[in-house]
């Protein structure tokens, strides 16, 4: 009926499909890469510089003009242009190679930090994004939020104090709560402490910590400390970290009389015919999922046992407060129990 060569039709189709795949595949697609690599718009660059200056001044590691271009990985000429523009509108003061934030500049930077941390909090509480993705998404979003939107967001979240990494969220008047803690790397053995902050930079270290399932709010006890490694127990598991990694975690030391439960296990480890008492829900369970578990009766002090194993392994059904509720392993592993 129609004359054409199916071979060529197929080839053209495959070519288009392959091209589409390389252009749009998630995160590594050329389209996204080009989009990301495209010149940042001026506002974003200025805001990034402000944030960089704010953080470096906070950590007492002053940076000069050359550092900025290097750290931000941006064109030096553009950075210079932006800097002089910023000096003109009095966001920074330039003297030779030294850059310093003015009051206006530091206020602006605080607003950016506020937007960033609020958005991370939003992602943690109200969306299903992976923990490892929060920072990147917030890094983009902070430039898009207007001042009014930021306030709406804060109100929607109930004006939270801390972001999910434990960093304080500056108030809209620019107050920042201090983090009073010790770095995990400096903790003596046998101290009991609570994790209050996990630094989300550098990326590689942060992702490693997240992958280890170490979370804010966990109680820990250091059992071994050496220049090579730090070992601590938390929520029924042992963790081994390199001191460099441990230095990204801040803890607050707890008084000696706080009871550290050593024989804590996770609900996922419960065997059939065993009963246990729930100690609590790990901090890594957040937002809606956490509330749901609480509503279903997975609260401190409740007795729990396996009601039904699953033919495919999970979810298992647990008998809790007289009702059979099925939970997947990734949920059960976040409920802390004491076997009885």
């Amino acid at each position, binding site marked *: 009926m129609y004359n054409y060569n199916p071979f060529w039709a197929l080839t053209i189709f495959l070519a288009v499909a392959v091209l589409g795949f390389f252009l749009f595949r998630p995160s590594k697609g050329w389209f996204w890469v080009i989009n990301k690599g495209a010149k940042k718009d001026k506002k974003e660059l200025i805001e990034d510089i402000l944030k960089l200056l704010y953080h470096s001044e906070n950590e007492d590691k002053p940076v000069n003009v050359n550092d900025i271009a290097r750290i931000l990985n941006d064109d030096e000429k553009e950075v210079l242009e932006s800097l002089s523009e910023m000096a003109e509108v009095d966001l920074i003061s330039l003297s030779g190679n030294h850059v310093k934030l003015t009051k206006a500049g530091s206020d602006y930077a605080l607003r950016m930090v506020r937007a960033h941390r609020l958005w991370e909090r939003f992602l943690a509480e109200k969306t299903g994004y992976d923990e490892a993705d929060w920072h990147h998404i917030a890094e983009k979003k902070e430039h898009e939020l207007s001042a009014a939107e930021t306030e709406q967001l804060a*109100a*929607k*979240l*109930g*004006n*939270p104090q801390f972001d999910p990494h434990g960093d304080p969220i500056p108030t809209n008047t620019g107050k920042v709560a201090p983090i009073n803690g010790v770095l995990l790397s400096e903790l003596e053995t046998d101290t009991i402490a609570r994790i209050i902050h996990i630094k989300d930079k550098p990326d590689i270290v942060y992702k490693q910590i997240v992958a280890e399932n170490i979370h804010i709010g966990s109680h820990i006890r250091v059992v071994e400390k050496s220049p090579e490694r730090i070992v601590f127990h938390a929520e029924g598991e042992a963790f081994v970290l390199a001191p460099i990694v441990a230095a990204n975690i801040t803890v607050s030391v707890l008084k000696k009389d706080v009871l550290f439960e050593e024989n804590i296990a996770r609900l996922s480890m419960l065997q059939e015919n065993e009963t246990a008492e729930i100690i609590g829900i790990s901090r890594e369970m957040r937002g*809606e999922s956490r*509330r*749901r578990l*609480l*509503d*279903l*009766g997975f609260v401190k002090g409740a007795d729990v046992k396996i009601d039904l194993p699953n033919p495919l392994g999970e979810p298992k059904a647990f008998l*809790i*407060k*007289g*009702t059979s509720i099925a939970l997947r392993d990734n949920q059960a592993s976040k409920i802390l129990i004491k076997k009885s």
Partner: protein
Amino acid sequence: MEAAPKSACETCPQYNAEGLKKLGVNLNEADFVVALAGNPNTGKSTVFNALTGLKQHTGNWPGKTVTRAEGAFQYNDQKYKLVDLPGTYSLLSTSEDEEVARNFILFGRPSVTIIVADASRLERNLNLVLQVLEITDKAVLCLNLMDEAERNDIEVDTRTLARDLGIPVVATSARYLRGIPELIQTVSDLANGRIVCKPHRIKNIPPNIEKAVTKLSNEIQAVYPDIPNSRWLAFRLLEGDNHVIELLRKGEFVK
């Protein structure tokens, strides 16, 4: 026709079958609005159907009623509109179901709230009951599925329960219409003010939080002297419930 002498049961107000008329969806000019709350899978819709004579589908599925259903019945010449709320485990979260249920109890200002609970799983069900009692003080606990509880050898002392909760408790098996007349009588007593509740308030709260709650609820009382649920409002504000904050700003609570 000569009136036959009535048996003791028939004259008893609790068995006043003549006074009851199931009105189905005829919702006109109700004298009272009655809300029906409860956990999923407690036979809430069966109670609803038993009261109204309607035949809403009542699946053995947690969370069947997603939108709210309405029906009506008449008892002793008073019309009651019955609103079946979505079944929820709690009123503290932000899911759509819970919002519907919560808003209705708050703003629908029902004359009476019937809380349906599964007698064999009372502890779990009390979670919702105690929350509802923080919001409204005109409530009755309908202890449903008594037949199942009996088969399970579970005994509930309804008197002690009523005393502890501070509201009337009626044991029912709605599937077999057991206890429904008593439930209707209790609802009517509550609606007409013949029974006054003194509902239980949540006690086991850490002292620092209790202090904050008391402080805030006192402030709320100062601003709105006739609000019945200042403590619950304080809970919501401390939780940072944006929805409630907005409604507060709009003045919804003083109507």
